[in-house]
């Protein structure tokens, strides 16, 4: 096996993994702040993909602007979903269950909406940048480098916001102790709405980057959602760093796995990896150990 092939796959794995990371960080953000699981996350991804397809491939708007439109629109969609569907459930008993059911409902609704509006066909989105980089005999498409660049910048931006801004302080405070956060002036209901919208926006961004590589269709959110939950659990529920590392790890493991078997096995490999990690560290790589 030529070493270049392995390296190429690792690079690919990191790139795809960084998108998993972006997607998963949205999920982990919601879990961390609201302690709920969002089963509609894949559909925010899917609709982001469709919006980029529509703006760029159909309307011819330049890719950067198309991406921006998609992210902002899905952010707003996230805000609306939170306010309309989730908001009042949170103050009622068994909200951990009712929110899962509600987001599943949103997911089904959005999938069928896309099916109805755009039909079941797969749509292709052209690459934002053409061309291939040749580095030490390894060929990497510029599109993929773009993906890597965007993910690095967004993850860094998220990190910066969480660590160094007043908003980030409020987000972290809500995640760590919602009561105390309220006592010191945090409007946690607004934080919940913002977190949900932000998470949706992140999913849309991931979709915008991946759309040229994978095709756009109403069910494109299903596989990422599954992998997203794998990443979140792998990295430790609620840990932002865990989601990033977990995403990249999953990407690399998958890519290398495909080298030695075939694409159909990629999911099996991913889940086997997850099981092994959880066996050894049930709380995930960066999760907080729960002691009863």
């Amino acid at each position, binding site marked *: 096996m030529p070493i270049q092939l392995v390296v190429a796959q690792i690079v690919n794995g990191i790139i795809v993994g960084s998108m998993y990371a972006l997607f998963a960080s949205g999920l982990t953000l919601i879990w961390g702040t609201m302690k709920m699981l969002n089963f509609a996350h894949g559909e925010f991804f899917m609709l982001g993909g469709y919006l980029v397809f529509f703006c760029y491939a159909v309307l011819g708007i330049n890719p950067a602007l198309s991406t921006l439109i998609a992210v902002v629109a899905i952010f707003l969609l996230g805000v609306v979903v939170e306010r309309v569907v989730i908001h009042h459930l949170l103050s009622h008993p068994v909200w951990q269950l009712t929110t899962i059911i509600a987001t599943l409902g949103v997911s089904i609704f959005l999938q069928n909406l896309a099916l109805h509006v755009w039909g079941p066909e797969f749509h292709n989105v052209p690459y934002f940048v053409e061309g291939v980089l040749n580095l030490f005999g390894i060929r990497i498409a510029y599109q993929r480098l773009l993906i890597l660049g965007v993910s690095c910048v967004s993850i860094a931006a998220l990190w910066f916001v969480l660590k160094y801004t007043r908003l980030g302080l409020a987000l972290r405070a809500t995640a*760590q102790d919602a009561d105390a956060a309220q*006592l*010191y*002036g945090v409007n946690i209901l607004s934080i919940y709405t913002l977190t949900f919208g932000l998470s949706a926006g992140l999913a849309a961004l991931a979709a915008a980057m991946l759309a040229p590589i994978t095709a756009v269709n109403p069910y494109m959110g299903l596989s990422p959602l599954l992998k997203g939950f794998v990443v979140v659990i792998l990295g430790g529920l609620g840990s932002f760093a865990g989601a990033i590392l977990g995403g990249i790890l999953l990407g690399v493991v998958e890519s290398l796995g495909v080298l030695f078997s075939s694409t159909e096995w990629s999911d099996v490999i991913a889940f086997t990896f997850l099981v092994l990690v959880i066996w050894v560290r049930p709380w995930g790589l960066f999760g907080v150990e729960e002691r009863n």
Partner: protein
Amino acid sequence: MPLLSVERISSYYGDARALVDIRLEIEEQEIVAVIGPNGAGKTTMLRTISGLIRPRSGAILFRGTAIERMPAHHLIRLGIAHVPEGRRLFPQMTIRENLLMGAYGAPSWRERGTLIEEVCDLFPRLKERIGQLAGTLSGGERQMLATARALMARPLLLMLDEPSLGLAPKVVETILAIIQDINARGVAVLLVEQNAQLALKVAARAYLLETGVMVKSGRTADFLTDESVRRSYLGV
């Protein structure tokens, strides 16, 4: 006009009555204690005042403004800081970040830099460990941090829920001294404590709460020899 006036407040946990017709007043710069046995409703009372629990009936006035229906996150702006039972620090934030959170919702956010300096002068132990995660501090340090965090909001009224809980006597003495110091600087203090002796050492006036009912109120001197405190705690 008193700084804080609690008028005939009743609070419930579901169908169970936690507070019945509670009345309480605090004047500016007073230290008032609320004592009572375990389960009396002391914490419920503080949580009702700070807006985490909505009362079923009654009113709470702060400097003349009705606050009983205000959302909890508005009160810090008005000048009420609550140090909750168990301290409730942000465990994965540093001491510095916890202090910043104290000023988050208050007008004092603007001067947060200088405030951190000031507050650390009061609590030198915190200054030494300013970059340390709050979850790794000792019990006494946590109580200091929780109190310092509240001070960052420059409150007019400081409400403390069982600050002595789980602390060694030496540490408790320190905390008490700090409370008196804070009060001397113009902050009114509402001290909720199960430890009656401790609370009565610093407070000018006190209230005795038993199973959700105020059974006694008055100047501290009235409590020191009265059998009613002992009877409330021990039943006979």
